[in-house]
């Protein structure tokens, strides 16, 4: 009996040692969020959220309206100060070293505009200067060719279609070759063809540059296609997480939309 207990302790120690060493060997996450909370008066928009995003991964924040995904994204961008909790990006505490990490990341959202009266070239020129991009003209030429908007360079941003604006916004978000890209509903209000084109471009960019992507979306198909891991949010909390295939297996559904509805309704019943 005693020897069995001894073996059990020994094997537990081996497991602990192995786990510790595996942890040591794993690359540090690009984003580490710990107990993040945001309150607006009596309303808790984000409630003790913790997650991490490994280098080179695409992680999706999935949730309906008011789930807290945009608020979480805003705190990761430093646009919003958390009520409590800690955000670490590239190993830096965001609260103290925001300006050390901002040059290495970028952001795109259909809800934040670029100046309408400026041309595409002028907008990109301004942001290239803000991000201290070397060889600005070359970078703008390459990027706009890549995103197939080089013919729009001298047109005013405000005169473009929704799809063209999305590509320009994407060009702005890639102007500094970011290692970390935060995207808020990157294909919202786009037709299926343009949406598909944007998703393909993001996949190609990530494969080419090894960038880390965190995207907030309530488009389940998009998340299923792009993300290595999904963080499901509802009412400011993380209600589940896992790989898209893992979540499908766990809930026995064919698509993430059904998984999301199951989780949302189960939580609502609670």
């Amino acid at each position, binding site marked *: 009996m005693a020897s069995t207990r001894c073996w059990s302790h020994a094997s537990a120690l081996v497991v602990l040692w192995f786990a510790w060493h595996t942890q040591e060997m794993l690359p540090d996450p690009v984003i580490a969020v710990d107990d993040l909370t945001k309150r607006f008066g009596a309303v808790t928009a984000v409630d003790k959220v913790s997650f991490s995003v490994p280098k080179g991964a695409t992680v999706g924040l999935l949730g309906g309206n008011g789930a807290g995904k945009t608020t979480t994204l805003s705190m990761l961008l430093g*646009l919003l100060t958390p009520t409590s909790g800690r955000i670490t990006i590239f190993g830096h505490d965001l609260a103290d070293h925001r300006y*050390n990490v901002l*040059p290495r990341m970028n952001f795109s959202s259909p809800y934040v*505009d*670029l*100046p309408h009266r*400026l041309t595409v070239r*002028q907008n990109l020129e301004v942001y290239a*200067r803000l991000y201290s991009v070397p060889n600005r003209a070359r970078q703008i030429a390459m990027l706009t060719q890549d995103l197939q908007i080089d013919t729009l360079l001298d047109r005013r941003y405000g005169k473009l279609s929704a799809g063209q604006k999305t590509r320009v916004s994407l060009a702005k978000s890639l102007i500094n070759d970011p290692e970390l890209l935060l995207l808020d509903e990157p294909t919202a209000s786009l037709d299926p063809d343009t949406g598909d084109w944007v998703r393909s471009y993001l996949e190609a960019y990530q494969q080419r540059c090894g960038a880390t992507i965190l995207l907030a979306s309530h488009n389940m198909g998009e998340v299923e296609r792009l993300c290595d891991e999904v963080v499901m949010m509802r009412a400011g909390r993380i209600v589940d997480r896992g790989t898209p295939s893992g979540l499908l297996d766990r809930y026995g559904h064919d698509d993430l939309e059904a998984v999301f509805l199951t989780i949302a309704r189960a939580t609502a019943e609670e």
Partner: protein
Amino acid sequence: MASDIVPIRPPGTSLGRIQGMVLRHVYLLRSSWPRVVELIYWPTLEMVIWGFMSQFMRNQGGYMGQAFGVLLGAVLLWDVFFRGQLGILVSFLEEYWARNLGHLFVSPLRPAEWVGSLIVMSIIRVLVGTLPAALLAIPFFGYSIFDMGLPLILFFILLTLLGWAIGLMIIAVVMVNGLGAESLAWLAVFLLSPISAVYYPVSVLPVWLQYVAWGLPTSHVFEGMRTLVLSGRVDWAEARTAFLLDLVYIALGALAFLTAFRAARREGKLLGLGE
């Protein structure tokens, strides 16, 4: 781990980012002739109205007849203050109207660099707005504000400094209260007009209001301007007091701006991000 923590690219210079933001507003002005016309329109119109008024008064003789340049000088210098304040404020509001703040503040642009670019734009707007009016006054009314000589530069600096301070305070109000406070932003500066001794000396005001007036750099500048035009003497004591008061107001403006910026980040006012 260590290689991850060290930034792999230099953050770039503040000057480059300030240039970027100035360029953004210059592009905007270049693309919109109504904006440029609006800059020049009011100072020129006011100069014409007060120019005729001054000519009329000169023909009547008396105090105002002796001091032909006082009214026109006051009009043009008030516009330097007004345009200085408006220059910083409008450049800020342009970002709000464009819903561009979210992009700006996730870039490496620091608040101090942003304010630096607003100040440069304020100088550009003041010069574009008031120089044509000042130059037109020479052939139209035979009045040159440049006859004041070097003290004119001093008055320009003292008034522009206060314009920036008031501009920062109004930006703080708009940042916390949103665009609902925009109309207040346009009107606030006119509250200072009656107690700034622009067109009449401080001694005209009720005694209790004189204390308030002497607390404003503008009163000292306009009293100094009248002394210069009427007696040809530079009142250095007034200039010194105006400068010290300017420093106080600049400090208050910077404090209000930084407090409002922190509050805006805490309450999510910098966002146009849905939710």
